[in-house]
């Protein structure tokens, strides 16, 4: 289906997202910190990025800013993962160019729907 880069420093969360997205047919690329996420986004050209906010090396907002500033990555849709839907995180993410957000703990049905919507929108564009 699609190549999705998942960036999360929590190994449990990373494995869970990896498992769930693979179970619906996607190919996944994994990153455990912001620096690695940026490197892989540039190198692997994923169709979509699922990006946690709190990460070491570089947090999700910094990664998002850099992705949107680069020609090769600015059009990749990004779904932010935030804890407890802190309003400022959501606003920062969306203002920074994120396509959508999902709060933790997450419902996979909701995440999957948002992933599909973002991918469909990218195909149309």
């Amino acid at each position: 289906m699609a190549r999705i880069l998942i960036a999360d420093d929590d190994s449990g969360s990373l494995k869970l997202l990896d498992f769930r997205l693979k179970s619906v047919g996607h190919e996944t690329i994994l990153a455990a910190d912001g620096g690695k996420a940026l490197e892989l986004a540039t190198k692997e050209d994923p169709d979509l990025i699922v990006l946690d906010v709190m990460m070491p090396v570089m947090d999700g907002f910094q990664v998002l800013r850099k992705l949107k500033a680069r020609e090769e990555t600015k059009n990749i849709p990004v779904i932010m993962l935030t804890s407890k839907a802190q309003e400022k995180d959501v606003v920062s993410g969306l203002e920074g160019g994120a396509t959508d957000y999902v709060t933790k703990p997450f419902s996979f049905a909701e995440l999957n729907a948002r992933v599909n919507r973002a991918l469909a929108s990218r195909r149309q564009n």
Partner: protein
Amino acid sequence: MLEAIYTVIALQIIILVFVPYLILRRWVVNLIERYAETRKSHFEPHVLNLLNDPTTTEPLESNLRPGDRKLIKDLLLQQATQLKGEDRRKMTAVFEKMGYVKNEMAALRSRRWWRRLEAAINLGIMQSQISVAALIHAVKDPVEDVRLAAVRALGQLNEPRGLQLLLDTMEERNHWTGSSIIETLIGMGPEINPEIVPRLQATTNNINARLLYVQLCGLRKIAEALEPLLWLLRNPDQETRISAARALGQLGDISAVKSLIDSLDDKTWEVRAQAAKALGALGDKQAVAKLKGSLSDDNWWVRHNAAEALYRLGGEGIEVLRETSHLGEEAPRNASAQVLAERALGV
């Protein structure tokens, strides 16, 4: 001289005994950790697979070694805390099927209070309705931490009796405890909202409880709380007015704009600062003129929040900032210029 020799000998004995002990201890701990990691890697795929089919618990129940059951429980709990909705319900079914819920219910009767505490916390994560009665009983535990954990667990179960207990506990305890209960309440479904607004309105004499309810209404964006919050914006207590302004910004209802504009003249700078921030969040351009005036406020935070709000309002608001950053008095000029510079840098 003799003392020096004895000291050297004693030191050498310490080094010869203690250092090997430390090295051996480290080696044993590493071995245990590696073993635990190996077992964890063995069980993790099966734990993940439960999300596809919660009946496939056989790999997690057969050929177990000592310590495996606890490890599996920890993996299941870790997974459950990351999920909600249908996946979370699958995990609850697994906890019940594998006997973990019954184990934790039994642990609520342990003589060790820390085990009872752990059991109450785990039952909150497991979210099994079977444990309700045991948790209600645990609300009478002699140890306060256990009582609080049991109340929280009932809240996580969306159990109506639990909600009442949770709200009562929030009102009766100190602010720190109340704030930690709010964390639980934020995660609960919309069915609890009808309980909260009447309690907010009833907090006439209890300022601490009032502040917690105002905070809760804002964080949960309870639409029905609009009128009470607007009324509280005129309360004689400044902490109440500050909290009400913050909550109205979080609520997102533009009917609050006029009242918040009036609050930009409040005698307390924290209220003015929160009102400015809330107006930025609400996004109604009728606030632009008054926010422009707030750029000249005596207080730095008010000026900064007003400038931020103007930026968030876009178009006209940004124009005001650009004009003010070049002309006029120093304070509004600096506030405008700072926000424009921060936004340009992406800060």
